[in-house]
């Protein structure tokens, strides 16, 4: 790559959003088409990025320009096997969300698309930043558009949800900011790679632990881990469909990504020490999230809680890998666990993204998400049923679909390191099957037909176009996992061998 591909990916959406801002707001069609067209650029670039990524090559596509030289802040971006799949996921979900929204968003079109492109920039920025200040700036930039997306286009309790989301995340951010400053004072650099190599607070475990927990809080809230998860059901339920998709698909990944990119390489010692605590929280997230999902009667809330459970797998894999730091022959298991965790992140993005789109599809028609209100829709909307079934099965980890591999690798890696955690976490698998098949599939689609929905129509073309790419990826990665695991594995092996 002899052009600054990462910068382009990150800032093309910003440019697009500024142009949208200058457009007259009556020209809704133009705004929509333009935004979608803009979002295709990073999508294509991210595919290029993935294709050109050298698998075992560590951080690539680096760009380093001084930004605020007085305090050694640089514009430093780069990507590796960890971030490239996530960048691709971001680009894909954003494009699909914009496409879907161009049919469903009716009011304040210009603002919506402006904010959405801005949001995209923030997300890309987090995944490419290799400088703490840059990372933090992008991290915060993403918050604002999301706040408005929930607060303006959301459901009935949107203000509450938006503010809760905002404040909750901000609390974590503040803690992280303090820790970042602490790291800077200790190592003298804001560069993530350099700081990680220097091991901040290596001489003082307690201070390191403090910084560790501060950053942990920021990321754990974003993931979200039990018990920091309650912003999530509210935000997901109130957000507009595309907002929920991005929230679940990408924003949750920001937290996980932070664990991989920052917390683990920077504080391996602390991570190793506290891994049992994190693993316990992860296991609780898995089982508890699944059980709470099972108790839901609101379709969207159910899927929201399922995210808690699924992100628990990511954290379990990570905690297990960290737990084994220092043990000699564990590299394979560690790598498998981490591969599983990253794969699970990606899977969760496409699967839960698809599920939220599907919730939107039914809500657009029925104006309710109450599971008891449906019944027997399978014959009425067979296409919708089929897609929902595939997405649901992928979500419950059916082998042959993408979701399985993430779980399998996480459990495989964890089992070798901490079998009890894996065994308890595996209970979540049964509950996941129960809530997907019993609550979602059975209550909505099976059983006697509820005559109330005699006029329900099946999916429109635009809805099919939105969902097919996601379904294809579920099947593709399910049938041929090396496609993505190759990329992830190289990065994870490198990361682990550096600890």
């Amino acid at each position, binding site marked *: 790559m002899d052009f600054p591909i990462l910068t382009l990916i990150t800032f093309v959406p910003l440019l697009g959003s500024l142009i949208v801002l200058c457009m007259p707001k009556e020209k809704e069609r133009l705004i929509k088409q333009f935004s979608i067209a803009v979002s295709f650029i990073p999508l294509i670039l991210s595919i290029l990025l993935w294709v050109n990524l050298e698998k075992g090559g560590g951080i690539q596509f680096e760009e380093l320009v001084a930004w605020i030289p007085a305090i050694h802040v640089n514009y430093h971006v780069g990507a590796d096997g960890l971030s490239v799949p996530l960048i691709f996921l971001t680009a894909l979900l954003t494009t699909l969300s914009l496409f879907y929204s161009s049919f469903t968003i009716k009011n304040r079109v210009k603002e919506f698309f402006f904010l959405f492109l801005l949001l995209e920039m923030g997300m890309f920025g987090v995944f490419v930043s290799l400088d703490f200040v840059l990372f933090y700036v992008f991290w915060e930039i993403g918050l604002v558009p999301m706040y408005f997306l929930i607060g303006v286009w959301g459901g009935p309790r949107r203000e509450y949800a938006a503010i809760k989301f905002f404040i909750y995340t901000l609390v974590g951010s503040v803690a992280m900011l303090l820790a970042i400053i602490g790291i800077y004072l200790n190592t003298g650099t804001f560069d993530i790679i350099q700081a990680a190599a220097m091991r901040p607070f290596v001489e003082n475990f307690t201070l390191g632990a403090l910084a560790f927990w501060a950053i942990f809080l920021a990321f754990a809230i974003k993931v979200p881990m039990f018990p920091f998860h309650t912003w999530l059901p509210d935000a997901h339920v109130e957000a507009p469909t595309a907002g929920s998709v991005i929230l679940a698909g990408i924003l949750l990944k920001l937290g996980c990504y932070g664990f991989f990119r920052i917390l683990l390489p920077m504080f391996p010692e602390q991570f190793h020490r506290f891994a049992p605590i994190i693993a316990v929280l992860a296991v609780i997230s898995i089982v508890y999230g699944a059980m709470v999902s099972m108790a839901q009667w609101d379709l969207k809330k159910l899927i929201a809680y399922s995210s808690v459970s699924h992100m628990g797998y990511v954290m379990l894999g990570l905690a297990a890998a960290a737990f084994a730091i220092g043990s000699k022959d564990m590299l394979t298991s560690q790598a498998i666990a981490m591969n599983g965790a990253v794969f699970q992140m990606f899977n969760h993005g496409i699967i839960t993204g698809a599920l939220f789109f599907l919730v939107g599809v039914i809500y657009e028609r029925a104006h309710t998400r109450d599971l008891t209100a449906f019944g027997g829709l399978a*014959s009425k909307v067979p296409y919708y049923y089929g897609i929902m079934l595939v997405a649901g099965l992928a979500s419950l980890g059916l*082998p042959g679909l993408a979701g399985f591999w993430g779980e399998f690798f996480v459990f495989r890696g964890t089992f070798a390191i901490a079998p009890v955690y894996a065994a308890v976490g595996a209970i979540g698998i049964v509950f996941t099957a129960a809530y997907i098949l019993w609550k979602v599939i059975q209550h909505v689609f099976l059983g006697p037909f509820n005559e109330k929905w005699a006029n329900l129509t099946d999916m429109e073309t635009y809805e099919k176009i939105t969902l097919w790419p996601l379904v294809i990826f579920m099947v593709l990665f399910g049938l041929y996992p090396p496609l993505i695991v190759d990329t992830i594995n190289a990065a994870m092996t490198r990361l682990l061998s550096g600890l």
Partner: protein
Amino acid sequence: MTELYDWVRLIPLFPFLAFAIILLFTQRNQKLSTYLAWVGIGLSWLLGWTIVFRAIGDAHVLEEGFRAPIFSIPTGRGLLQLGFQVDALTTAMLFMVPFVCLMIFIYSKGYMHGDPRYSRFFAYISLFATGMLGLIVSDNLLLLYIFWEVMGLCSYLLIGFWYEKPSAMKAGLKAFITTRIGDVIMFLGMLLLYSTTGTLSFHEIFSEETLHFLKETTVWLPLVGTVSVAPVIAVLLFGGAVGKSAQFPLHVWLPDAMEGPTPVSALIHAATMVSAGVYLVARMFPIFALLPETASMSVVAFIGGFTALFAATIALAQDDIKRVLAYSTISQLGYMIAALGVGAYVAATFHLITHAFFKALLFLGSGSVIHGAGTQDMMEMGGLRKKMPITFWTFAAGMLALAGVPPFAGFWSKDEILAHAFEEFMHKGVVSWPFFVWLVLSLGALLTAFYMARQVFLTFYGETRSHHVHAHESPKVMTYPLIALAVFAVFLGFVGVPEEFPVLGPLFGHNLFHHIVGHGYPATPLNWGVMGLSVLLALTGLFLGWLVYGRNPLKEGQPDPMTKLGPVYTLLRNKYYIDEFYSKFIVRPAVALATLLFRFDNSWVIDPFVNLVGKVGAWLSDLGRIFDLNIIDGIVNGVAAVTAWFGKILRLTQTGKAQNYLLVAILTVLLLLGLYLYLPM
């Protein structure tokens, strides 16, 4: 030579393609969908049998196996290789599975005729066939697990195929969740195996070094302490088999699975899903048998033996023609499991194969009966022998095979199991699992013969007991598969005739089946005593059945003679109330716990805590507001007021005339100039 085996990769692919094409493109066209499904399974069958017949004569493949890798997944610095294989056990299964599937596919055309989701049915059963074919050709446990789950999904979809019926819908869910519980246990077993040995490939697991390593390795279990790892793996894997093969205590899903269309029942019970559990145990048998004195074998023997007898007793008191067969299946699977539990690997596999043929036959036969009579209740049937002759004769063949009457297929396989158990029992004495197994299986043989006789007499003899049953023979597309399967039900047993058996032994290739599968296992010697006893038991059972149901066929309105057993009958009829027990003590508490946790999350603790923090924050900020308003703002306003007062005075100097300002400027300059000039430096 090896090129042919490489094609094994295609065996699961054909039905999968059929599945995908039907689902995506040809749903509207029922005829095309049917043919696509037929072509898919037909190609698999042709290819499968070509490979089987090549492999039978190929000692290298039978002993070592042939592996055809597909792809590998990187794991850190290692690789997880996935692929297909052909070996002895695969060969045996590959003989049975595609053929039985093909028969079921053909039969389905007649049975599903006119169903609104006809095409989708063929898509689903094609996927089902993919699952089973993939399962038997997998060369490692992970791939096996994948196909295993695919089958679980298909059983869910197919059992709940008529999902408008709440009972069908619930049965599908029950099947999936119940087997899933077993699967999770199996999953853990797989993880333990993988993390202990670092491989999931059968070839590598069963190599000398790995087995030796497993023998030496121990694992620490909570509550139990340090134990050998092999039995732990075996018992965990067995959990999956218990779920899939519907063994006690996870058997509850299988009778309910009768809600699905009959070809599905045949697929699930005979050729595919339930045998997958037995296949798993057979496949992993070296691990089970690694330390024969530990829990692994006794658990298997106990569960199998117990289930065999337990399910047979329930079958005595069922009125639904398919439910009787369902419990019979559970019972027969118990035979196989128990056989594996006493080390009768070859006998169990043999029974697995023969049972698949005659049980598929019985299920399809019962489907034909249902199709013709329009009811599943045996109490309403009767006298169908005349109206449905082909169905009757083929059904009778299946019944005799199941009852274990010589020379039908079931006799040879069942006898081999009993003989093996007896042999072991002779070795180990009365206080041993083989004795238990031999005892319960012999008892089970008696019960089996009895309930099958009951079924045949109730269904086909006497007069019709309900005026709305107007039976007719099923179409040819349904009866031909019955005939084909019946041929196997009668003759298949000969491939496993003990070598010493006069005339038949040498005639049929000196126990051909053992030659194929039994590499490394000694053949079970012929035992005339056991054989005589088992024949005697089967005939006694049939005779008793005739005595109760055949001599004086039941008339309309007459109660089942079984009701004379009183409370025992009620207990059996209600399946020992196990469903009720599970519902009350497992399902409901789980749901209640989920609701409780949600309240905990949403109304009681976590979210209220978050909201409390929010409220305290709001309260503090309110305090801040007051402070702000009166003090901070007071100061700010005070500064402003002082400034304003000064401004009021100073504005007097602002005349608005530029000349005034200029004058001031010039005067100032002059003043400064004066100061500069006259002040001493």
